[in-house]
């Protein structure tokens, strides 16, 4: 009798299959990204109009040199970089949240970006001391590779500190993140102090947290790293789902937990390292995007990760658009825009989900 009663209480309208919605979201979000890309290409401080360029191209008329430069060397690389960085920020956030089993884990919040930043600063300031053979070998890659190594090391340290016997303590994770971030910040400060004038210029430029410095060479450097990390997410989804039930249960359903964790840590480090190296610190994308998607289509990582990449790219392009038009013709650093938009959402998550993130 008691059983019949329990069965009769429908607690909420049943969400029988979010799976299909999540799959459809791939298409919708890809469509959104295309629209945002077109808006981004069409907007800018100069008088160049996308429409004019396109009609000229279609009619076979010559495109003026200014238009060509504005389109091909300024707006397009900035667009591509925005897509890459936005996708990587959101993906690294989503993967990290899966790895740490917590919706608050975000590279920017728990010191991984700071670690990657330290790596980048080290490469800029101490790069002069590296053997020149190595420099010529890695070339443009010095800063991103150093950022990757910094992010990788900090993720590993963080995981070791906050996870005991397969369980992650949220409090320890956040506190360890604060400590890591502070340490990386302090060492970065010392390095900045040591830097000479030319390096300082590099550092300021790098640290703005902006897409303004986008060039094709940066795109070429960040592209493969970010592409690799997005590709990796295709293989992480099922594992991260299983990991939500704890390491032991994940193992019992046939997931190679050690390989999964290594893969997830590598993915986070690659994506964060590449994003930090080319655009400095841009916050909140990694926490807001996966959270919104979880609300809309559920936490299934098999669809969440790709959807995060798509929505992250769109949102960063929108933020970039805002940063370009709000005080045009000047650029507001995009990190400010994402913080202004993202921090309130983050607080809202904390308010709504206090039970879920209880320490």
């Amino acid at each position, binding site marked *: 009798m*008691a*059983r019949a009663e*329990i*069965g009769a209480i*429908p*607690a*909420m*309208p*049943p*969400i*029988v*299959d*979010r*799976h299909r919605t999540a799959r459809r979201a791939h298409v919708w979000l890809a469509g959104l990204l295309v629209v945002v890309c077109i808006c981004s290409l069409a907007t800018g401080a100069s008088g160049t109009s996308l429409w004019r360029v396109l009609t000229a191209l279609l009619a076979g008329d010559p495109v003026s040199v200014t238009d060509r430069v504005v389109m091909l060397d300024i707006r397009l690389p900035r667009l591509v970089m925005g897509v890459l960085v936005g996708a990587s920020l959101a993906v690294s956030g989503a993967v990290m949240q899966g790895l740490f*089993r*917590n*919706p608050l884990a975000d590279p920017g919040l728990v010191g991984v970006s700071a670690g990657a930043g330290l790596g980048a600063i080290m490469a800029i300031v101490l790069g002069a001391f590296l053997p020149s053979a190595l420099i010529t070998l890695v070339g443009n890659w010095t800063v991103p590779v150093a950022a990757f190594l910094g992010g990788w090391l900090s993720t590993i340290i963080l995981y070791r500190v906050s996870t005991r016997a397969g*369980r992650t303590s949220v409090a320890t994770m956040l506190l360890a993140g604060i400590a890591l971030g502070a340490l990386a910040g302090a060492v970065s400060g010392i390095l900045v102090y040591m830097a000479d004038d030319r390096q300082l210029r590099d550092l300021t430029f790098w640290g703005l947290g902006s897409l303004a410095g986008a060039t094709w060479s940066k795109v070429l450097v960040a592209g493969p790293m970010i592409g690799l990390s997005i590709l990796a997410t295709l293989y992480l989804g*099922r594992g991260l*789902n*299983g990991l*939500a*039930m*704890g390491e*032991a*249960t994940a*193992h*019992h*359903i*046939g*997931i*190679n937990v050690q390989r999964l964790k290594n893969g997830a840590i590598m993915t986070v480090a690659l994506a964060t390292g590449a994003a930090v190296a080319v655009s400095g610190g841009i916050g909140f994308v990694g926490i807001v995007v996966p959270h919104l998607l*979880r609300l809309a289509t*559920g*936490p*299934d990582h*098999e669809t969440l990760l790709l959807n995060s990449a798509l929505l992250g790219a769109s949102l960063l392009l929108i933020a970039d658009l805002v940063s370009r038009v709000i005080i045009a013709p000047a650029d507001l650093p995009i990190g400010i825009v994402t913080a202004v938009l993202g921090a309130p959402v983050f607080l809202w998550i904390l308010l709504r989900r206090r039970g*879920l993130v209880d320490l």
Partner: protein
Amino acid sequence: MTLTARDIRVSLGRKQVPHGVDLNAEAGSVTAIVGPNGSGKTTLLRAITDEVPCLGQVMVEGLDIATAPGWQLAARRAVLPQMATLAFPFTVLEVVRMGLMSGGHGQDPSLPSRALAEVGLAGYEGRFFQELSGGEQQRAHLARVLVQVWAPVGQDGPRWLFLDEPVAALDIAHQLEVMDIVTRYARAGGGVIAVMHDLNLTALHADHVAIMSAGRIAAAGPPDLVMTDATLSKVYGCKLRVGVAPEGPRPFLLPHCAALA
């Protein structure tokens, strides 16, 4: 076919629990592990499911669990933990689906719903797992475990269920229902190893009982042979009297307080 564990030792800090345990279990029957709190039942189950590193050797259907790849083990045995956690708001159906091998490709898509109906949770598919009661959560996890090794006997031999206190959080009707599922699984040729606290349910459903005490097996065998007044009273440290139910040969027992006895 069988499961054999030889000389299992797990180091927990300075002590070893279990401390040299041998366990044999046959597919087609229910093997229960009983014993007082802290006697090492969960740790033994963890050791024989390759969850904690242990000394000794465990063979399941001819596979050495120390060397067999995880996916191969997962195809032959499923494990229900004593306490289950879940991060993120998955629905019941999404949790049960996780039991489908390799994400469910090429498997009967109706399995999760059938398993949920089996454990008495039909209609719970779309509810959030975290909003279920403790007993409902436990049954949902049981459904996930059942989905993983749905057929008691596969092409490569019997499948195994390892259950750590499968009925601990359940009301009496659901206790009987779950024990019935487990027994039917064994009758159909599958292997079942269950850690139990309820001695009467154990006596009723187990074909083989291993009684643990302080990291060792104190007695093992059919319930009517090993579940005796002397053994149980000694292992649990309180007076217990075993009787026989009017309808049959299975033993049943009532606790007798030392003061009353």
